[in-house]
């Protein structure tokens, strides 16, 4: 009972908190506006621009972990660069992009949230498109997203390891297992077995389960107001799709390749036409996986944050109420999407694996 109330309270807080944070940000904006009111931009345009920037910033990766920006509750993360040797220093040295960080006699500065190598004064040379022409060092920093992935990975690992331990003494799931076992069985019975087949599904189970819970938990983490939308980052979805791609290729049987290069059951000229198409399909499949997850999560966040932003654009209380309702509704939809995208990714992955190991006895 107590757990139930706790869960309810937490989820309610989770749904409301982005609005609260936005409100604080809005107040800060008002102070900023006074300072830049003399500029040619109108007040409304400035506000609109700020909102857009805030949303973009919220969606992007960062070098420090901000819990509550306005209160200064944040902690720096290590910056790791490869630039004539390993350069490791704390991201606090950047002072949010205002200062030049010095490491082993090299100077680095943040520009549009990216690290550039600069001179002592932190000069950023711009080309005609307002892009920096300074060299970018190879960046292996533990950014906000990397940190989140690490945290979520540790969380998933301990969660399921503890869950696995409860099975040692008895075969009936206890506590959390009651919730997670049906999900594991769902991945096995609804995703793996129907798509891959009873004969081969076992070797893919670990990957399917890991990718399912990994994406789902990261999606859920992205729903928090901390701005840790890891799955709306193309590098992350690319990595995940890449795994699916390589596992598909390396576990495939000769039937799979035969179906790509010499499609059985069609006339010979068709075989020549189908081969490049099929070969292209091999790469398009994981590419679609990557874009689907990335686009869905990004779009969801942008829509949600835009709606929250609209709450502050309208002064009419009726409109505010309506947008509040809409925001809550969309938040719930996004929770569903978080699960759905994890499901679709796992499902399609299983489908590709199934294609790679299909026996094609019917030919």
């Amino acid at each position, binding site marked *: 009972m107590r757990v139930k109330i706790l869960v309810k309270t937490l989820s309610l807080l989770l749904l409301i908190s982005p609005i609260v944070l936005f409100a604080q940000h809005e107040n800060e904006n008002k102070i900023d506006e006074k300072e830049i009111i003399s500029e040619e931009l109108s007040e409304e345009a400035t506000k609109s621009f700020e909102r857009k920037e805030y949303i973009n910033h919220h969606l*992007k*990766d960062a070098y420090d972990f901000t819990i509550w920006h306005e209160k200064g509750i944040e902690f720096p993360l290590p910056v*790791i660069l490869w630039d004539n040797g390993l350069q490791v220093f704390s991201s606090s040295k950047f002072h949010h992009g205002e200062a030049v960080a010095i490491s082993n006699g090299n100077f680095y500065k943040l520009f549009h949230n990216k690290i550039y190598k600069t001179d002592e004064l932190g000069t950023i040379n711009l080309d005609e498109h307002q892009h920096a022409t300074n060299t970018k060092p*190879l*960046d*292996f*920093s*533990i*950014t906000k*997203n*990397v940190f989140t*992935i*690490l945290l979520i*990975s540790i969380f*998933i*690992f301990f969660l*399921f*390891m503890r*869950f*696995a*331990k409860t*099975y*040692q003494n008895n*075969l*009936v799931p206890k506590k959390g297992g009651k919730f997670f*076992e049906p999900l*594991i*069985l769902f991945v*096995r019975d609804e995703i793996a077995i129907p798509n891959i087949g009873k004969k081969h599904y076992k070797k893919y*189970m*670990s*990957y399917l*389960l*890991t990718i399912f819970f*990994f994406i789902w938990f990261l999606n859920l983490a992205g729903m928090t107001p901390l701005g840790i939308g890891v799955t709306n*980052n*193309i*590098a*992350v979805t*690319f*990595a*995940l799709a*890449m*795994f699916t791609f390589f596992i598909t290729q390396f576990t495939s049987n000769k039937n799979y390749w035969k179906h790509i290069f010499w499609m059985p059951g069609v006339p010979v000229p068709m075989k020549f036409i189908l081969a490049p198409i099929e070969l292209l399909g091999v790469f398009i499949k994981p590419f679609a996986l990557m874009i689907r997850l990335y686009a869905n999560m990004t779009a969801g966040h942008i829509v949600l944050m835009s709606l929250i932003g609209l709450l502050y654009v309208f002064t009419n209380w009726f409109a505010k109420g309506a947008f509040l309702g809409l925001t809550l509704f969309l938040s719930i939809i996004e929770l569903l999407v978080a699960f759905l995208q994890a499901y679709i990714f796992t499902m399609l992955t299983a489908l590709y694996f199934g294609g790679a190991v299909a026996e094609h006895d019917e030919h």
Partner: protein
Amino acid sequence: MEKLLNDFSVGLFFWQTLLFIVLLFLLRKFAWKPILNAVNEREDSIKEALNAAEDAKREMAKLKSSNEDLLNQARAERDEMLKEARGIKDNIVANAKTTAKVEAEKIVAAARESIQHEKMAAITELKNQVAVLSIEIAEKILKNELSSADKQKTIIDNIVKDIHLN
């Protein structure tokens, strides 16, 4: 597209790949294998238990049918025994009847014989009595007849006359 490529962070990709591989192998060893094994084991044990229950049910049915058979056999046996007993009884009764009849006849015959004897004895005695009585009567009559000389003379005359006649 250019923005997408620009947003692509090699560092994030590197860490994501590394962390995911580590997570995959750790989970595989410490979570998925034990969990899936346990689940499989459980499913097998459930299947086994179900099969065992089915077997037990079949066994029960078999037992029941064999019981039924046994019962039927017993019933048949009982019927037969009853029949036999009835036959024996009938036999015994019939025998007894015959024996009784024979015995009764014997008794009746004996009785009849003894009755005959008694009758004979009675008749003999009666005859004796009658004889005695007859003698007494004859004596009395004779005494009476011979009481006087005349009468004696008459008798003798009669007898003599008879002799003559003869």
